[in-house]
């Protein structure tokens, strides 16, 4: 029933927003593609939820500028929080171009249109065409590109009083207190949505103790620009350079937060890349940094578990069964990180098999378009 409600609410929003957007965009000289993969499948479960950068209802649409056929990505919202998120994303993109204390340049798609002040906020940015999806590139290339993107983020380090003054109105600035508070909030929400899962409660309690025990190591590497949702669908590769999408997820915090999100993702989608990046940190960075990465992976797993446990009350049938499998899988990953032992490959393979059986065709299509 609740699944129906969440899905219906999203469907209603999507229909309403699209009906309003189509004539507006046409008037502005844009047309939309007939298929919009970013609004389908399990997208309804994510609507209005974000770790960083606000969160609200918005549509992400693919389209073309009629005058020259240029492909664009349109973000549109009439929801207050969604409008704020689009605005924040724009401000983040702008300030990153001019920050004096950034040592390397970060690439972001160029802005084509930005309109706000009326009933809708609309942003159109250039669609970065990539010859090949990130995950279908050779592993060496994936490694080099991801390292390039991590280093570009790490080059923006706000340490001085003047740095903080320059960014505090645009970006969230997180230290260990914010990470711990956020982790505790996630744990409480997770256990509320999955109250009878005692193994999960135990793992989360252990994780919290571990984070508290090493809170100085979390704080030590804060003050860096980091992307809370650094995964392949939020980056594009064009002419050897990495373009960061979803600038609303950028904030200042622990530099290993974006590494952590990426490595947790790669554990499932490209294990050799996860292992190569871990080896890189082990060989080239300090032991404190290696621990900081592990701590951030644990923190991010807390967020991921919150998200998947949060889908339990909203889903039924196969999607509900899949949510349960997801919670159990990521709990096992959390345990392996707490024990500092690699997760057995069979656990990953078993989960992938079960996930593929339970995923809807529409979601499979959305996933293909994402990565």
């Amino acid at each position: 029933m609740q699944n129906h409600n969440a899905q219906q609410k999203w469907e209603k929003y999507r229909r309403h927003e699209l009906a309003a957007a189509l004539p507006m965009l046409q008037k502005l000289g844009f047309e939309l593609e007939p298929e919009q993969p970013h609004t389908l499948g399990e997208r309804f479960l994510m609507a209005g939820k974000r770790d960083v950068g606000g969160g609200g209802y918005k549509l992400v649409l693919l389209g073309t500028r009629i005058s020259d056929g240029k492909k664009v990505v349109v973000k549109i919202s009439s929801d207050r929080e969604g409008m704020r998120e689009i605005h924040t994303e724009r401000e983040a993109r702008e300030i990153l171009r001019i920050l004096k204390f950034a040592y390397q340049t970060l690439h972001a798609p160029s802005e084509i249109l930005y309109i706000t002040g009326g009933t809708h906020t609309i942003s159109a940015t250039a669609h970065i065409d990539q010859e090949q999806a990130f995950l279908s590139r050779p592993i060496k290339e994936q490694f080099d590109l991801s390292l390039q993107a991590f280093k570009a983020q790490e080059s923006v380090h706000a340490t001085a009083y003047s740095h903080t003054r320059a960014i505090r109105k645009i970006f969230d600035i997180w230290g260990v207190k914010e990470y711990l508070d956020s982790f505790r909030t996630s744990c409480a929400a997770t256990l509320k949505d999955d109250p009878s899962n005692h193994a999960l409660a135990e793992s989360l309690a252990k994780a919290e103790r571990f984070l508290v025990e090493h809170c100085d190591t979390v704080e030590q590497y804060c003050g860096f620009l980091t992307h809370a949702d650094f995964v392949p669908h939020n980056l594009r590769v064009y002419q050897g350079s990495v373009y960061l999408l979803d600038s609303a997820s950028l904030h200042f915090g622990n530099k290993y937060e974006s590494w952590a999100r990426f490595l947790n993702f790669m554990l499932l989608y490209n294990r050799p890349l996860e292992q190569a990046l871990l080896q890189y940190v082990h060989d080239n960075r300090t032991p404190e940094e290696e621990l900081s990465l592990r701590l951030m992976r644990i923190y991010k797993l807390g967020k991921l578990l919150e998200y998947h446990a949060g889908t339990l009350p909203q889903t039924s049938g196969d999607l509900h069964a899949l949510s349960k499998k997801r919670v159990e899988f990521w709990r096992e990953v959390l345990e392996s990180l707490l024990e500092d032992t690699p997760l057995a490959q069979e656990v990953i393979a078993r989960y992938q098999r079960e996930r593929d059986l339970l995923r809807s065709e529409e979601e499979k299509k959305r996933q293909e378009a994402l990565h």
Partner: protein
Amino acid sequence: MKIVLATPLYPPEIAEPAPYIKELAKRLSALHEVTIIAYARLPEKVPGVRIIAIDKRQPLFIRLIAYFFALLRAARRADIVYAMNGASVELPVAIASLVTAGTLIIRIGDAAAHERARRNWRTGSIEQFTFSRARRVVIDAPRSRPEIMPLEAYPKEEFAAYEASWQAHLHTLEDIFNHAKS
């Protein structure tokens, strides 16, 4: 010898001279008593090295004063104050050198700051005054540590060159320190 390393940047900062100072402290501490004074909050530790961190998040004037007094205390007992260029270190070390016995050696490790000082009269004057107080101005720099890439062959030759450059650099510094002290 008692050596004070005064630096504007120190790891977790990644820009030079942060990695240089950490590596230098590690190597010098085998033979000398080393203290680092840095603008940092939670600096990375080096076994056997004392690190005094001045929180960079304070307003400029307050952190300059804090740095100056920390330096003054450390420099009183030191034989050598080896300071990295950059106005935020140059100003406190130059003033401290007026009242302490430790010999001041300056290294131009931040080329961008040096360039800025050439174009700006205020930081330029601070740099000139500091250089005039220093026994030596060093520009020698060892190589940066090569990266070990997991999907590539181990950079054996690069590491040999890196190690050799550090040995040569330490030899140069020991010469300068001994000469300056005598």
